[in-house]
């Protein structure tokens, strides 16, 4: 096993840690009780409660991650099918999903598999995708069992990505799989058994699709689907590229024509069949085809409607702002989010949206090719962005790395959103200088938010888990211990499960958002952690973003030294808002829509004061 121990750079933080109140729980993750089946710790909100008295001061926890994949039975080796012909899909890797397939309260794992890019569709000799059931609940031990076959999800295509969401509002999570070939929609029966409903649901696109995201763009109460497509590539008409010195290597995306992304509207009615309709053109999303790799959906301009941001490879990115009438307008260029600060299109791969600076809007971060920095687009309000990469220190470490999976997450539960970037080259590096090393291997990176608008870059590798060719990354609390773990996939290598081993976990609050009918339709809801005298921390219920991957849909707040009780405000995706109070800390709670108190976002100003000094 590999352990990455990352000490917060600021010694002062450590000093503050030493002053932590005695009543702060300090049990290690392993010592902490795990939730039994039925989620007994899920106490839910009470009708009223006191405003927290303790401010969420950052706790100075050293962050450490340990790769526990092999020790917990998470055995998966991605197969690229590389044959020396340098077929383009071989270098793209594949993603993963963290999803609770059986509703038992823990996150199961789905891993996309490659195979041979020249294999015929449905070739049974090809390796299939892998579903691993987490037995944390009820055993209390983090351990995985391969349920690929019984779950019905061992699809054999050239796998790319996954999106998760409750598409039929029946309370369980369904699964959409993208491929370099026909996509697949799996419907969950509630017990972790899936049926392929692609044919009947109108999922019939056989182009090369990459990342996908569920969103309710038309506010009709069901989840629609946005799918990014990459390029027109045919193994039959393939000619490899070469590097400067004449060595054959993989081509870049601009060697091929790009493809249109698609928006599929969910036509679901409770008594009917699941059916999706391609509304791309009707919704105004038709645009010159581009090489799409990443997508994240959020209300970027604060008008209450979910927008779509698409990360394109070596072409201008797209910001589709939702007009609220079922149509979208593309305004990335005017919004300052199409190109970096120098006006250059970058090779965007992974993308993530989050309010890292605590000003109430969604900021964007995306990972890029080496020689480009990763880029931070700070939302200046109303969906106008500014490239603040260097000012925030997020260029560090990125010029030499090609970034893929990435996400905002609170690695150390200090209340500030940090970043993780999975790295791995797409074109051969100078292999001669590192005998034995993969010419595509690069170290992953963790960027720790210092709280003043800047980040410390910390490499994420150890001697026995060296630099690898990482691609997908899914984020979630896989052991339900209150901190966020990371599942990283590799191109042609084993999946890594980086378990977050915060020594005492810090303060935290986990939230499951549900509707009154128990459906999981809370995607896009925004949650505000309300604390008297302190800035509101905003999080979003989502599983999208990163690269080809789907993350834990639960909402997670790191709360520093504060352990509750907490008060939160929720703005559901249809714009209605509620307040839930007296939520105990260091627990998961379910927030059921319609059971909270009336709340308006404007009320938040009564308790919050801006404290951010982040770049704007």
């Amino acid at each position, binding site marked *: 096993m590999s352990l990455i121990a990352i000490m917060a750079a600021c010694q002062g933080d450590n000093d503050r840690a030493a002053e932590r109140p005695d009543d702060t729980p300090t049990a290690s993750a392993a010592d902490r009780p795990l939730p039994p089946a039925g989620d007994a710790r899920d106490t839910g909100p009470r009708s009223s409660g006191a405003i927290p008295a303790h401010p969420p001061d950052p706790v100075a926890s050293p962050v450490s991650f340990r790769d526990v994949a092999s020790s917990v039975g998470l055995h998966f080796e991605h197969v690229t099918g590389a044959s020396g012909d340098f077929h383009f899909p071989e270098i793209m890797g594949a993603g993963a999903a963290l999803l609770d397939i059986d509703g038992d309260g823990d996150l199961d794992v789905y891993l996309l598999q490659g195979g041979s890019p020249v294999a015929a569709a449905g070739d049974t000799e090809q390796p299939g995708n892998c579903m691993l059931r987490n037995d944390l609940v009820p055993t209390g031990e983090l351990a995985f069992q391969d349920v690929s076959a019984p779950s019905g999800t061992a699809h054999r295509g050239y796998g790319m990505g996954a999106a998760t969401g409750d598409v039929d509002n029946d309370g369980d999570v369904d699964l959409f799989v993208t491929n370099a070939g026909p996509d697949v929609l799996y419907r969950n029966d509630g017990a972790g058994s899936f049926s392929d409903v692609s044919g009947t649901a109108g999922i019939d696109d056989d182009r090369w699709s990459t990342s996908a995201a569920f969103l309710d763009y038309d506010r009709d109460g069901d989840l629609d689907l946005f799918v990014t497509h990459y390029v027109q590539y045919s193994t039959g008409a393939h000619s490899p590229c070469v590097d400067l010195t004449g060595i054959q290597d993989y081509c870049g995306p601009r060697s091929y024509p790009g493809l249109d992304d698609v928006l599929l509207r969910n036509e679901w009615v409770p008594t009917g069949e699941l059916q999706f309709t391609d509304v791309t053109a009707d919704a105004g999303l038709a645009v010159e085809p581009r090489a799409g790799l990443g997508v994240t959906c959020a209300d970027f301009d604060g008008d209450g409607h979910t927008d779509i941001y698409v990360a394109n490879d*070596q072409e201008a990115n797209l910001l589709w702002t939702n007009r609220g009438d079922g149509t979208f307008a593309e305004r990335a260029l005017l919004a300052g989010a199409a190109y970096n600060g120098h006006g250059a299109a970058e090779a965007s791969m992974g993308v993530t949206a989050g309010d890292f600076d605590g000003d109430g809007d969604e900021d964007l971060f995306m990972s890029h090719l080496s020689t480009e920095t990763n880029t931070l687009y700070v939302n200046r309000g109303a969906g106008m962005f500014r490239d603040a990469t260097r000012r925030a220190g997020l260029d560090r470490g990125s010029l030499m790395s090609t970034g893929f999976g990435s996400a905002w997450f609170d690695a150390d539960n200090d209340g500030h959103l940090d970043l993780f970037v999975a790295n791995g080259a797409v074109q051969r590096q100078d292999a001669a200088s590192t005998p034995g090393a993969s010419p595509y291997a690069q170290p992953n990176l963790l960027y720790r938010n210092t709280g003043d608008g800047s980040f410390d870059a910390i490499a994420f590798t150890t001697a026995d888990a060296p630099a690898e060719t990482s691609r997908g990354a899914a984020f979630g609390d896989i052991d339900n211990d209150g901190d966020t773990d990371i599942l990283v996939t590799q191109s042609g290598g084993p999946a890594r499960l980086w378990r977050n081993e915060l020594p005492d976990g810090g303060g935290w609050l986990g939230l499951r958002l549900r509707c009154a009918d128990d459906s999981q339709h809370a995607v896009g809801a925004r949650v505000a952690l309300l604390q008297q005298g302190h800035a509101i921390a905003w999080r979003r219920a989502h599983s999208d973003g990163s690269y080809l991957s789907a993350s834990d849909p639960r909402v997670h707040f790191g709360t520093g030294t504060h352990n509750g009780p907490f008060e939160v405000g929720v703005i559901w995706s249809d714009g209605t808002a509620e307040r839930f109070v007296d939520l105990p800390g260091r627990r998961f709670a379910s927030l059921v829509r319609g059971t909270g108190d009336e709340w308006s976002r404007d009320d938040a100003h009564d308790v919050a004061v801006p404290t951010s000094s982040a770049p704007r």
Partner: protein
Amino acid sequence: MRGGAGALTRPGRALALGTWLACAGCVEDEATQAATAAATPTSTVASNASDSSIPGRAHEPAAGGTARPTAEDILTVDLQSLLPVIREQVSAARAAAVATPTDPQRIGHLAMLFHVYELGDPALAAYQRARQLAPDAMRWAYLHGALLAQLGRRQEARSAFRTAHELQPGHPAAATRLATLLSESGEHAEARALYAQVIAAHPEFVEARLGFGRMLVEFEEPDAAIEQLQAALALSGDFGTAHYSLALAHQQLGHDDATAHHLERSQALADVHPPGRDELLRELHALALSDRPLVEEARRMIAAGNARAAVAPLQEALRRNPASLDALITLVGLHGIQGDLDSAREAFEAAAAIDDGIARLHYNLGLAHLAAHEPREAIRALRRAIELDPQLGDAHAQLGVAYQARGDMDAAAAAFRAALEVAPRHPLAARQVARQLLSSNQAREVVELLSPLVADESAMQPSLLRLLATAHNQLGDLDTALDQFVRARSAAQRSGQHSLRAAIQDDLSQLARQRLERGSSGADDG
């Protein structure tokens, strides 16, 4: 761009400089360095590292990792994987450096070659060595800094540029590069002063205007930014990135129309960049081989039957010169040979966009259509080739083949004869005309036609020899026929045409039977 030349190259290619271990010892990537140090599970990692930009420090082996090439290693870097033409160029430079290992010019020249071919680690080591040998030479410090900046090792690059600036304070590029790195690392006051100095001393230096303008946009001083950016545009004509920064500046001022205008211009001119005024970088890039030797190498490969390998030098040629007609024309033919008509068409369109009046281009497209069993389109392309160059015997001959494929044998015969008129020794045309003559019992004409063509032993084509032998046979000259069949069989054997060799053997057997029937002796061909 998509399609055309752009589709054949690899735009946006990652700079293949060094591996992660190379990064681990650097400062810009202090995080990586820290993590490498954190190889033991109990290590505590700080994310701030000290500056290791002092020559000799930057290339220390990374903790727990593999050492990068040292200054001594640069003379033994394995060059086998390089394209032969590049290997030859680098090998010559290396041989010169080996001969005089303390000559900073030769070591520096080798460093520049490594640099321009993106062999990062050897280039860094060689620059470092050159700097040690000539610590007062600004050029090595500057180029070392340029490479470090390319690698994202900004603190080391900043130190190198500072040294270069101190060695030659009046050098505008060194001061500008230093100012840019200072600005990016938050040392704005010094950056501002440096930009101001450069612009005062070298008001024509566009890079300084642009860098300063961008910095002013970043710090929301839009009026001053606009002044610098407009000056940059005035100095070097329109280019996209200046317009983008101007758009941001006008956006800060709330000038919606101007913002929209400059955004539109930035899109229209996205691929237009100002001409570089950095002499040292121009010198560096001039070292890269031009496209011509690469195209010639590709043609040699194709001629040797190694079409697949020929793609690499052609792509590299196009990377260096996207408007290389030689490379594009060769690619049309190469894709045609490989049966990839779509790619051939793409290359054709790219070339035709540059110059549509080249006969060889249309000829190669004709070949691609022929390979794709499209004789009608092939005829059109080949006719166009002949129209452009009536002396192009290949085009006449292939036009004959195209007519044959369409079943128009008269037109084919005319085309083959036309080919022989402009190229009397054209083997394909000669073969086809000879066949026609033989079928009409004009053996003597065949002997006249083919005899001059098979005189050169090295250029003998077995099929022509076979036709000549058949003609002699028809004329009753069995001994000569026998001799020609034997030569044809040997030629087929040498060229690996086994089915042809078998057919010639059958011819020989038949000829032997004829001689026996006529009572001749000596039919044994050995």
